[in-house]
């Protein structure tokens, strides 16, 4: 679900095909019948943006029919935990959870806590809500502090307490019946029940089932909660931490996982350590207290953080100066990419550097982004080709329409050619957390350089220029450790030396560390990313290991590259054994307790303290990982369990709820609260929203649009519309529509269509196909329109950008845009040219008023 794996991860899909050939049942639940659907044993067509209704229905089915994996749920999840008396569900409050503050538009999450828990901080801090990890409390770092020791204060092992998580879950999803699913998603109730049965039949001791998803799940205003719903199912069915189980995120860029682990993201430092926040923490001690969980592996937060500061600032970071905490930059709640775009439009952002990204095509409301770029003082674009983001000032829809004039755009632009992957050393982290080294094959030509070269020399130049500065603001950059050996004529920095810093070493001996348990909080170790510690041990680049799979005994292939953490291939794998440490079944054995040896062993590196017995009970004063019991596999959580109910870490609710997309032609069948109340909206002239549901004018944009990729292209096209052999395979922007819709609006197969929202209009060739069938939702015939988003004005093949149509409306946890479900109108024929284009958009907008 939420993934078109055969099309977008074809080589990964070989394993799915192999599973199918061995008899696995493979379902594809998707608005479109895609190349993936064609290969699966079953396809269920649903309305784009209705997945939580579908998955919530599965949760209800499991609970209703007693299909949950009892022993797993009771021991490994927080099902037995009793939740605070103050908690109220969406079922009680018509679509809101307790703690909603309509003025701030946020939740105070204190009522979502485990009952009997001391709420972190005193009254003064209550105002901020219970958000110890503000800024990155959500998304990546929500690991749950607050527990005094590993065990929640109040539990009901029989799962009968009316406020225990299990009962709350039952109540929350009770209305997600097969009929509700059918009405909301537009699939048949029978097909849905068949799906439920299949997934339940393929779970338990002897079998496991897996979910594969991609941005079809994440790119919604409730994106995080989509994945959370799948997580609930997998916990109830006992499919986490076990071979053949899990939830597989299929990521779309070579190192998108790496750029999250070693983030080029505003809100985290390497290894998911939160950036200091302008409001949340105050002094160093408060920052430490807020982020150090007394129990679980986050109990060692200080070691990870201090070692990072030693990597960043060397001898300048000391215990006395709080490791330079005071000088570090602070973030606000949201300084994400879209927030930056809006700041550009307001003239507040003056300079922008773009490296290997094409926001003028790839960002939602790409038009707003182009308008933003046209307001900058200066812009640096680094890419292999001259992409739209570098050419917007003379080649863009706005130049064509006259909205922008080249000689009126103040932006100074530097286009710097970049080196290809074959022209530099380095590592990518793939979708399975595997760090794989790629070696340089040839020298880059002309001015082409790696980004390592660019940022290293840029930093070197800036440091040189500021070396004599006495401005306090320059203290930190002066303190930055910035010495990397270079080689070759162009002075390319040594990529391995950077990886060594990422791995870290002991300062006194200079020896590389072999894993994060070796990190110290006293400044005696250096480590650029704690979860990557061990990737360069014993002087060996572990990521460059390329032992052929046929030379390795185990199918796990541990000697191919290196995965974080600790070369562990399957996270939380202690859950592959029962509470007593025995494999759930012989068929599904993976990691187990070896009684004779007194340690955990198996096919993988156990994700558990090696000698911690299954029966271990932590003493009351235990800290960090010592506070996790021997039968609690989820060691990053403060209570060692997986969370069916999330007491903290999420902005928009402890349990996923079906909300309509921000721009949906429908009302929420469950509540008067139509869409996610906590979603981020930015209504302004560059980002207006379509009228929705029953609002007047909604009929102007009556269809559900969804964007996607094709096998033959890559994202915003910079790496595929520039390649002849790929361009010829999909040489034009097109839209996919059903025969009914074509009939309804008079679209001709092979002809042209103009697709419009209140923000923009684009044109596309028309592909009429049964593969995007019209469906019945809430008693109404609904048409969906499929839009690949690869095209722009540059390259060998050019065309309209689907992202011009969609809006900036974001998930509140991770600030991701909703482009997998939004509303549009469509009409036959090519779009108006020149000035007539904005006039047309305006005309439709007025009609919708």
């Amino acid at each position, binding site marked *: 679900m939420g993934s078109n794996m055969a099309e977008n991860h074809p*080589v990964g899909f070989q394993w799915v095909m192999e599973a199918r050939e061995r008899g696995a049942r493979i379902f594809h639940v998707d608005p479109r019948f895609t190349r993936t659907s064609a290969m699966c044993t079953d396809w269920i067509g649903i309305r784009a943006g209705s997945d939580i209704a579908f998955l919530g229905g599965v949760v209800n089915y499991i609970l209703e029919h007693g299909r949950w994996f009892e022993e797993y749920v009771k021991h490994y999840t927080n099902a037995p935990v009793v939740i605070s008396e103050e908690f109220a569900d969406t079922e009680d409050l018509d679509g809101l959870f307790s703690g909603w503050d309509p003025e701030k538009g946020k939740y105070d999450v204190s009522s979502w806590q485990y009952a009997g828990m001391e709420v972190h901080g005193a009254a003064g801090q209550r105002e901020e809500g219970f958000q110890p990890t503000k800024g990155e409390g959500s998304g990546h770092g929500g690991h749950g502090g607050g527990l005094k020791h590993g065990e929640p204060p109040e539990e009901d092992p029989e799962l009968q307490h009316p406020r225990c998580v299990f009962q709350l879950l039952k109540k929350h999803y009770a209305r997600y019946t097969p009929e509700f699913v059918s009405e909301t998603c537009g699939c048949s109730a029978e097909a849905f029940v068949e799906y439920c049965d299949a997934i339940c039949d393929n779970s338990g001791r002897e079998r496991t089932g897996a979910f594969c998803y991609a941005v079809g799940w994440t790119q919604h205003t409730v994106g995080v909660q989509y994945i959370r719903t799948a997580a609930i199912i997998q916990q109830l069915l006992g499919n986490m931490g076990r071979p053949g189980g899990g939830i597989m995120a299929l*990521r779309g860029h070579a190192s998108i996982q790496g*750029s999250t682990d070693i983030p080029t993201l505003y809100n985290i430092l390497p290894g998911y350590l939160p950036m200091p926040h302008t409001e949340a923490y105050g002094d160093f001690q408060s920052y430490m207290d807020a982020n150090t969980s007394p129990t679980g592996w986050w109990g060692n937060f200080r070691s990870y953080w201090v070692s990072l500061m030693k990597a960043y600032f060397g001898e300048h970071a000391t215990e006395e100066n709080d490791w330079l905490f005071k000088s570090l930059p602070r973030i606000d709640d949201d300084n994400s990419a879209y927030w930056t775009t809006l700041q550009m439009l307001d003239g507040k952002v003056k300079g922008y550097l773009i490296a290997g990204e094409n926001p003028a095509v790839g960002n939602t409301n790409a038009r707003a982004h182009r308008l933003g770029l046209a307001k900058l003082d200066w812009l640096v674009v680094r890419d292999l080709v001259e992409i739209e983001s570098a050419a917007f000032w003379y080649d863009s829809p706005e130049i064509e329409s006259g909205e922008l004039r080249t000689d009126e755009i103040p932006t100074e632009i530097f286009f710097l050619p970049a080196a290809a992957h074959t022209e530099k050393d380095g590592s990518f982290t793939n979708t399975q957390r595997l760090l794989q080294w790629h070696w340089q*094959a040839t020298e880059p030509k002309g001015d082409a350089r790696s980004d390592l070269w660019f940022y290293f020399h840029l930093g070197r130049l800036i440091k040189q220029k500021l070396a004599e500065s006495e*401005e306090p603001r320059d203290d930190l950059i002066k303190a*930055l450790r910035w010495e990397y050996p270079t080689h070759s004529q162009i002075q390319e920095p040594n990529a391995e030396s950077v990886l060594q810093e990422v791995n870290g070493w002991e300062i006194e001996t200079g020896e590389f560390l072999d894993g994060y348990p070796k990190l110290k909080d006293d400044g005696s170790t250096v480590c650029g990313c704690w979860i990557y510690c061990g990737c360069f041990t014993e002087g060996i680049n572990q990521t460059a290991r390329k032992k052929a799979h046929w030379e390795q005994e185990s199918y796990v292939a541990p000697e191919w590259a290196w995965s974080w953490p600790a070369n562990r291939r399957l996270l939380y794998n202690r859950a592959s054994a029962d509470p007593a440490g025995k494999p759930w079944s012989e068929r599904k054995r993976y990691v187990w307790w070896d009684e004779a040896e007194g340690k955990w062993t198996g096919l993988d590196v156990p994700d558990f303290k090696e000698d911690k017995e299954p029966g271990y009970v932590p003493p009351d004063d235990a800290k960090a990982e010592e506070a996790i019991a021997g039968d609690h596999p989820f060691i990053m959580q403060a209570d060692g369990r997986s969370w069916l109910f999330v007491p903290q870490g999420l902005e928009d609710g402890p349990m996923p709820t079906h909300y309509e997309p921000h721009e949906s032609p429908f009302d929420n069948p469950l509540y008067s609260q139509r869409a996610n109340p906590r979603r981020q909206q930015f209504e302004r002239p560059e980002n207006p929203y379509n009228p929705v549901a029953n609002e007047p004018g909604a009929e102007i944009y009556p269809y559900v649009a969804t964007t996607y990729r094709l096998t033959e292209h890559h994202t915003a096209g910079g790496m595929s519309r520039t390649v002849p052999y790929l361009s010829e395979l999909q040489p034009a922007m097109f839209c996919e529509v059903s025969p009914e819709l074509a009939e309804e609006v008079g679209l001709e197969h092979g002809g042209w269509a103009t697709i419009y929202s209140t923000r923009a209009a684009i044109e596309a060739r028309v592909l009429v196909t049964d593969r995007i069938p019209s469906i019945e939702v809430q008693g109404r015939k609904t048409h969906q329109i499929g839009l690949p988003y690869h095209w722009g004005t540059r390259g060998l093949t050019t065309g309209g950008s689907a992202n011009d149509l969609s809006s900036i409306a974001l998930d509140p946890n991770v600030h991701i845009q909703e482009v997998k479900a939004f509303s549009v109108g469509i009409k036959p024929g090519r779009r108006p040219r020149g000035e007539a284009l904005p006039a047309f958009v305006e005309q439709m907008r007025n009609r919708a008023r």
Partner: protein
Amino acid sequence: MNLPEVVRRWPVLRQLREGDPLGLGRAARSRRSEALKPRNDAADHVVQSVCPYCAVGCGQLVYVKDGEVSHIEGDPASPISRGRLCPKGQASKSFVHSPLREFKVKYRRPYGTRWEELSLEDAMEMIAQRIIDTRAASWEEKTEEGNPANRTMAIGNLGGATLDNEENYLIKKLCVGLGIVQVENQARI
């Protein structure tokens, strides 16, 4: 070519000599066909690489001849991909050799109507200076509420998911040092 060779290659003689009277097999084989070898065999060296497109992380073998990539195909040793590649991965050589690739710095001055040439050295120097100046002009030591800020909100950096871990590491590190907090990549987009 010496005469006996010409005679030896004379089709009728070859057909008779090589037991191929119809001349549809060995006797008809041209000199090129006889000498044919896969060009990978002539590569100067081969390096193990990773596909630059999606995050499956398929193994690639990059063949190099005379300092140029002569071919890219799947690395059979990879337990992930077993030597296979999708159309994009398979097109990697054409990507590296794209007819649209740029090898010169291009500069567009404010309000300019065309690209101009600029040396890489000058470009680096100018970019460094722009960052320093913008940062100085926009430095926020404290927020309006008086909380520490230590940052510039006038500069942003976008990109990373297509880059190497090492590159991402340097970007984030440099931006922290400079107080640039608006650092983002495709993971959110």
